[in-house]
């Protein structure tokens, strides 16, 4: 918490989120977690905008269609950029992007659409450059978007999970979590047109899958409210802990705290 003493040892360098008091003592200036890298101490705040790293998986929403690129909102300080050259267009990988492609950008991604992408580059001003040059990235279909703090999403090898309870979840590093029904055929078909034509599935989602998605949504919100880190294991534990409640009951504060508490206990037992 702000004002807490981090250490009295004078040998450390001050990082972000700290300040030196008059008596050579290091204090925290934001509420967050202490991060120590060799001699550098900093405090990573809990409530912050997303700071991109190259290689991160993010979920973003298109806010603007510009000349040769799309502007994407990723819960960071500046909007991110998705260039026309960085997406997979229908008709194969190595197509030359002509003038018609520019004019028909809206056909692929319109304002309001959700995409999953990877951070390719970071500009000098801090804004991110995204790309969807892989079959697993692209436009997102039916499902539910959740916004949590970016500091709660753990950096893992993969952020696309097909949970055993029967739904798929994408944990964007920027705090946008996307829960969707598992597409028939194993791997999620979210490519923007790999094979020509759009595979936007607008069919009715069956009730059993809806229940799974709703439960997952409430469970993730429980964990987020109680500042628990989010990754596939924690979400599954929380899922199992939530089965004793009905789905709307999980919106209650007490139920939320209970589920988060049980999950934290189980995770601690794992670590021991």
């Amino acid at each position, binding site marked *: 918490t702000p004002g807490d003493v981090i250490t009295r040892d004078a040998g450390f360098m001050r990082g972000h989120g700290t300040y030196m008091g008059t008596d050579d003592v290091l204090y925290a200036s934001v509420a967050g977690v202490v991060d120590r890298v060799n001699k550098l101490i900093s405090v990573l705040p809990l409530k912050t905008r997303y700071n991109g790293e190259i290689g991160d998986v993010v979920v973003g929403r298109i806010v603007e269609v510009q000349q040769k690129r799309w502007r994407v909102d990723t819960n960071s300080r500046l909007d991110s950029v998705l260039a026309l050259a960085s997406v997979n267009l229908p008709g194969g990988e190595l197509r030359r992007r002509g003038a018609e492609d520019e004019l028909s950008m809206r056909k692929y991604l319109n304002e309001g659409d959700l995409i999953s992408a990877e951070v390719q580059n970071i500009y000098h001003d801090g804004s991110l450059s995204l790309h969807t040059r892989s079959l697993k990235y692209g436009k997102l*279909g039916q499902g539910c978007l959740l916004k949590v703090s970016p500091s709660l999403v753990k950096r893992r090898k993969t952020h696309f999970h097909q949970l055993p309870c029967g739904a798929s979840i994408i944990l964007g590093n920027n705090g946008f979590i996307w829960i969707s029904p598992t597409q028939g055929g194993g791997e999620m078909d979210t490519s923007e047109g790999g094979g020509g034509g759009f595979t936007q599935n607008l069919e009715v989602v069956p009730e059993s899958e809806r229940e799974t998605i*709703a439960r997952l949504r409430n469970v993730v919100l429980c964990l987020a409210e109680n500042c628990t880190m989010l990754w596939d294991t924690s979400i599954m534990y929380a899922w199992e802990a939530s089965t004793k409640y009905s789905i709307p009951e999980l919106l209650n504060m007490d139920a939320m705290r209970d589920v988060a508490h049980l999950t934290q206990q189980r995770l601690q037992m794992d670590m021991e």
Partner: protein
Amino acid sequence: MTELLLSESEKTFILHGVQQNFRGDGRTRSEIRPIVMETDIVSHTNGSCHLRLANTDILVGVKTELETPLPAHPDRGRIEFFVDCSANASPAFEGRGGDNLAADISRVLARSYASPEILNLKELCILPGKTCWILYVDILVLEVGGNLYDAVSMAVKAALFSTKVPVVTVSTVDGGEPELDLSDDPHKATRISVQNAPVLVSLSRIGNYCVVDSTPEEENCSSASLLFSVTPKGMLTAVKKIGGGSFQQTSIQAAAKQAVSIGVEVNDKLLQKLQQEEEMGRKREKIGFLL
């Protein structure tokens, strides 16, 4: 109301969910999200309430003032509503943006409380034609998270329930104006009966069905909403339509029935909780804003 962007598939998902009576967070079309509420927390008011419905945050304060009654109704007190949409609530409320919505809400509240059966305004009269109590109800919208009207009406009802009107004794002075003696004792106060106070129920139309207590995403998908003011006895005191879509006559009637059943239940539970809070007495710990 909100400038939220949604993709086509998200809207389809919500639409189908409403059709199957299973919304994004697991609720049915007639379920309301959990509400946290506390009364009597603002110290300079006669009555107050802080209500939180998911992400919607409302603060209501009631102040009583002595003024002259209207010449048209010399034997009644008055109740006036003032709504302020704080700029913190939503980026759309910056500057004068929230004024339209604020005026809308106060008008609806004034209409729903206008019927003489709701509040016994005659109780508020001290000297007919000369002095009466006026209840100034100030509503502050702190955060918008969908379902603004309902939350405001519930908070207003709770604040009125907790309002303590000071006791006034009239002592006539010889040959002069009657003198009013305001009791300074905080424990000697009359309460306002809110047994008949209405609660607003807003139904948003998504596809062919009406849902109660819509989240901002659901509000974005709906074409129009109907606002019903329902008393605990099931009577409708005000009806308003918000939005640009249209309703068929049969759907309006069906929506009215749905609203009445939900409104009666909400009124009931609200009163129960308020009485529970009352029973906890003066010694209860006031948590205030740090919820």
